């Protein structure tokens, strides 16, 4: 008994030690980013590095804003990511619902074809997509950034898997209550999928937020730049503006953090609990 308890304690200690180590490993670069954003460039490069925050954040930001109009860049990124996320949530959940709950011809082949597109790297798609957008005369527009990725295969797959867990009886019950198929989708299926939708929203937002190569090809004028492209502009041929990059990177994670905090309360498990008596 006592032996067992000691073993448990050792295990618990090791688990905590592992978790703490992982947290430190992940937090150090983040901390360094935050500190570096507050240091003037010369202190950034000194050795040993300074680990206490300085006071140059606003100066660095002013310099960044001067060079790039970073506020506008963030606004572009947020606008694109928000519209993309909303649009893609609608499309992915509708497609996922159809694949999970309806029978139609060629359902399986279509689904696997969609899944298969996952193996295509973005780098491969950039040139054909650019040519397509050029033909449509959509270059240097936000819709060219948003629309090609709107039906996201990961999103469709995720929603299909989750929607399979909605009991058929629930949908049939709504059908008997006189709901149309679309009402069943948005009044019954969607509300029970809140936590999955929240998780998917973060995945989609992050995908669009980090997109670099494709917008770089499509967006031509500086007033259309998104954050990743803006950041890339700070790496000049003669010098790299580390101080400004760090400020920009720090600001770039703010919307992500906000999004996560907003959606966090949706991640409550057991939304479907109490619907069916097992």
């Amino acid at each position: 008994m006592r032996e067992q308890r000691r073993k448990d304690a050792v295990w618990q200690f090791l688990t905590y030690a592992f978790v703490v180590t992982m947290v430190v490993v992940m937090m150090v670069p983040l901390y360094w980013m935050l500190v570096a954003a507050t240091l003037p460039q010369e202190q950034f490069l000194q050795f040993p590095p300074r680990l206490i925050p300085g006071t140059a954040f606003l100066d660095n930001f002013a310099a960044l804003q001067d060079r790039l109009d970073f506020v506008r860049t963030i606004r572009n990124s947020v606008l694109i990511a928000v519209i993309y996320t909303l649009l893609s949530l609608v499309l992915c959940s509708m497609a996922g619902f159809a694949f999970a709950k309806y029978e139609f011809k060629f359902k399986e082949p279509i689904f696997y074809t969609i899944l298969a597109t996952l193996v295509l790297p973005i780098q491969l798609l950039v040139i054909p997509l650019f040519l397509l957008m050029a033909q449509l005369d959509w270059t240097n527009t936000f819709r060219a950034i948003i629309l090609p990725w709107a039906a996201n295969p990961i999103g469709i797959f995720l929603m299909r898997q989750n929607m399979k867990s909605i009991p058929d009886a629930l949908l049939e019950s709504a059908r008997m209550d006189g709901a149309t198929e679309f009402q069943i989708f948005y009044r019954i299926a969607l509300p029970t999928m809140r936590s999955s939708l929240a998780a998917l929203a973060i995945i989609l937002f992050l995908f669009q937020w980090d997109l670099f190569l494709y917008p770089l090809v499509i967006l031509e004028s500086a007033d259309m730049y998104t954050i990743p492209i803006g950041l890339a502009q700070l790496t000049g041929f003669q010098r790299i503006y580390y101080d400004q990059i760090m400020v920009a990177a720090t600001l770039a994670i703010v919307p992500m953090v906000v999004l996560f905090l907003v959606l966090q309360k949706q991640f409550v498990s057991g939304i479907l609990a109490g619907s069916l008596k097992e």
Partner: protein
Amino acid sequence: MSGITISGLDKVYDSGTENVVAVEDLSVEINHGEFLVLVGPSGCGKSTTLRCLAGLEDVTNGSIRFGDGDVTDLRASERDVAMVFQNYALYPHMTVRGNIGFGLKLSTKMTGDKIEQKVENVAEMLGISELLNEKPKSLSGGQQQRVALGRAIVREPSVFLMDEPLSNLDAKLRSDMRTELQELQADLDVTTVYVTHDQTEAMAMGDRIAVMDDGVLQQVGAPEDVYRSPVNQFVADFIGSPSINLFTADVDGATLRGPGEFTYELVDPEPVAGHDRVSVGVRPEDITVVEAGQNTADVTVVEPMGNENFLYMEMAGHELTARVAPAVRPTEGTHVPFDFDEAALYLFDAETGDALKTKTDTVDSAIVGTTED
């Protein structure tokens, strides 16, 4: 308000390589306001039949009429039916109020106030008024069951369909709800089709019961008729708890022989004329333990129920069950003589299972209740 006429209903599932026949040539007429119980073992097609009535499954052949109207090709929402599902299927994200009112909100042009009023009336009728603002997950099984019922009742449908609605409740609650459901159905006077695999429930609740096996309707009738005069061995075996005792015997003139030393002299050998072998059926309550007799069995287990005893016996490798008075408790492992009345005897064709003879004993009807006016 309407009765139901099902004629020649077939339901065949096309599972790619082979066709699975779930329901075959089912015809039955259900009267207005009747409580019909569809009963049978799992996979017998009773739930499929119900789903066809609901409009959740397409019908392969045949037709379904509610009253005068053919509903065969109507969608579920156009049939004016309400269904209670086995696992209740409550909308988890809505309150009880939302759950009950959902159908009215979608399928009628009623105002919000009117709907609210109806929801509250139904909730009061079912005794769940204080739960109206709760979510389903905070309710007990019995309460969820009432909400599911409320959702069906509130729409005032012309037909109620119930798919094993009580099977998830514990035994005590189940028998309470059984009575309550019957009373409710009688009050509302709505034609009801109720599916269950539990023959006790079927016997207790149905005005008539319809026994199904393997997609085919075996018999429709009042519970007592089905119990006393089953059309075949399957129905006799399925209806009644504990099950009827069945064994095969050779026919030797007016004498039934086997298994083992078993012999039984028939006073009226007419039903077995022309048969070499028959299936013999005796209900457990018709077996009596006697002082001395022709036939004996070994007692293996005695189950005292308080008001009666169940004797499990063995006769030449065949199990026999007897329901006897509590005073009759032979020691386990002993040999007891038993007997039964010919009037209580069932005989079935050994090959086809068709009934040759069923109970002819009289039911004691000395006490008949009076109706108060």
